[in-house]
């Protein structure tokens, strides 16, 4: 099981290595946000310093890569429902969940690597966090990716249409983004928005990230975020493997 998962991961990493341009373009957006948006936030921080703004905004920039990167991971799989690759793999000796999980592990690795690059930029801008905070943040990114990528593959296999999928992803992205406090902390929002945000899993990822960066390791949002994404990730994987089975009609 693990062997098959890693075989698929290795294969997908090979494909990625031959097309390195795409993941690099993928992190341009969060990097630009760091460079051009974080400075705007300095006015709402207590001392008006960029380093304070970076503690608030860097976790958000990372969650943004998870959203805009991993949520689109499934697009490539729509083509594979048509070109016969999935059909062939489904009747091969491969452990079926590995077909999806192998790709998800690749997406998680990508996400961690991209996060490291974004953290590097933030460090150049003056962000200082502990190694423990960084390690936990990268782990949190991995579980966020576990959920987002599995959801994306499930969606791809269920919808099987590029246009339909891009509409659905776009439809969900904006409210998920605004209600996670990604751009501005939810503490600035009116009560009703704060209530609604509590139902958005990404809210916990952003809050947990901010707590980690602030060095507040006892914040309850941290275990909640890890728990939520692990559970949702497993559910999304189950769904996508089921959708894989439905390909056969």
């Amino acid at each position: 099981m693990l062997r098959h998962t890693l075989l698929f991961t290795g294969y997908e990493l090979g494909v990625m290595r031959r097309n390195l341009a795409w993941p690099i373009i993928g992190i341009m957006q969060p990097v630009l946000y760091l460079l051009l948006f974080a400075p705007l936030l300095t006015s709402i921080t207590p001392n008006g310093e960029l380093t304070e703004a970076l503690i608030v905004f860097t976790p958000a920039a990372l969650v943004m890569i998870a959203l805009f990167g991993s949520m689109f991971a499934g697009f490539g799989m729509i083509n594979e429902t048509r070109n016969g690759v999935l059909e062939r793999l489904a009747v091969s000796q491969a452990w079926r969940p590995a077909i999806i999980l192998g790709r998800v592990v690749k997406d998680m690795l990508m996400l961690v690597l991209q996060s490291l690059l974004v953290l590097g930029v933030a460090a150049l801008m003056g962000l200082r966090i502990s190694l423990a905070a960084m390690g936990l943040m990268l782990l949190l990114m991995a579980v966020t990716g576990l959920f987002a990528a599995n959801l994306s593959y499930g969606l791809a296999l269920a919808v099987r249409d590029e246009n339909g999928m891009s509409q659905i992803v776009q439809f969900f992205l904006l409210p998920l983004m605004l209600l996670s406090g990604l751009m501005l902390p939810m503490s600035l929002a009116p009560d009703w928005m704060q209530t609604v945000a509590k139902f958005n899993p990404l809210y916990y990822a952003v809050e947990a990230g901010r707590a980690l960066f602030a060095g507040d390791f006892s914040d309850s949002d941290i275990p909640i975020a890890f728990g939520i994404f692990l559970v949702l990730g497993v559910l999304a994987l189950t769904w996508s493997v089921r959708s894989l089975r439905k390909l056969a009609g």
Partner: protein
Amino acid sequence: MLDIPTNGENVIIEAHDLRKTFIAKRGRGKTEEVEAVRGIDLAVDEGEIFACLGPNGAGKTTTVRMLATFTIPTSGTARVAGFDVVKEAAKVREKIGYVGQAGGVDDNAPGRESLVLAGRIAGMSRKEALARAEELFAAFSLSEIADRPVKTLSGGQKRRFSLAIGLVNRPPLVFLDEPTTGLDPQNRANLWDEIRALRDQGTSVLLTTHYLDEADALCDRLVIVDHGEIVAEGTPEKLKKELAGDVVTLRLDDLDGARKVLAAQPYIKETQVEGDSLRAYLDDGEHGLPTLLRALEAENLAIRSISLDRATLDDVFLKHTGRSLRDAA
């Protein structure tokens, strides 16, 4: 249930009353049941090339997908290489190669990568998988293009990669779903040779096709499938012989009159009206033709055109379904 005779050797595929009904969505919450396969019995011997011939939509692909453990049958049973396709799907998958209609080769990677991955999934070490890939590249003349992204290759080259991937685990049985569709005549002929070579090495092949000449030239035995059912079964020779060796195709104004006259002739085994022409089947066309012409002349039936051909599997299809395979799609 059809009683299908085999050559008495070991049977590699055995299917009984296989059925598949899909639930198709028809918008606004409405659904419709589509009976794709309606009771298919098959027996394929080890080491033979067996064809499912039929028009598009006849249920050939669904049948192959059920036998290859991709689609779960609605009812009926099938054993492939001795294992039940539903209850022992994992065991079946060790014994088969499957080349779907779409090919199933990843466009974005070089063929070598796809082959090595397929080999390793089948349980080989990286070294073994690389060696097996090399072997298959040599067999299918792919060595020079093995490291080019598949998307840059021609249709025929892609098809050879599909076949190579399907054979990576040295399966005793391969399924080929429409293996030559879309290939030019040269590539088709080459692929036929490669499929024959497989049989010569002892591999059993089950292929689907809607090309009559392909079934005729390639397979040892075949079934003709239409609307999800088998309408005829046998060797190409036996099926054609049942009908007659030759066929006379006539175009004339009074089709029914001519049909009556010809049906009364002792040497005419069968007549069929197809569109605006009449087809008469007889064993010895060269000698029968003059007699046939005299009989029509005696009734003052004016002939616009006439031709004499060898009977093909299309005539077999026409006899059993009342349609020509060319029109059936």
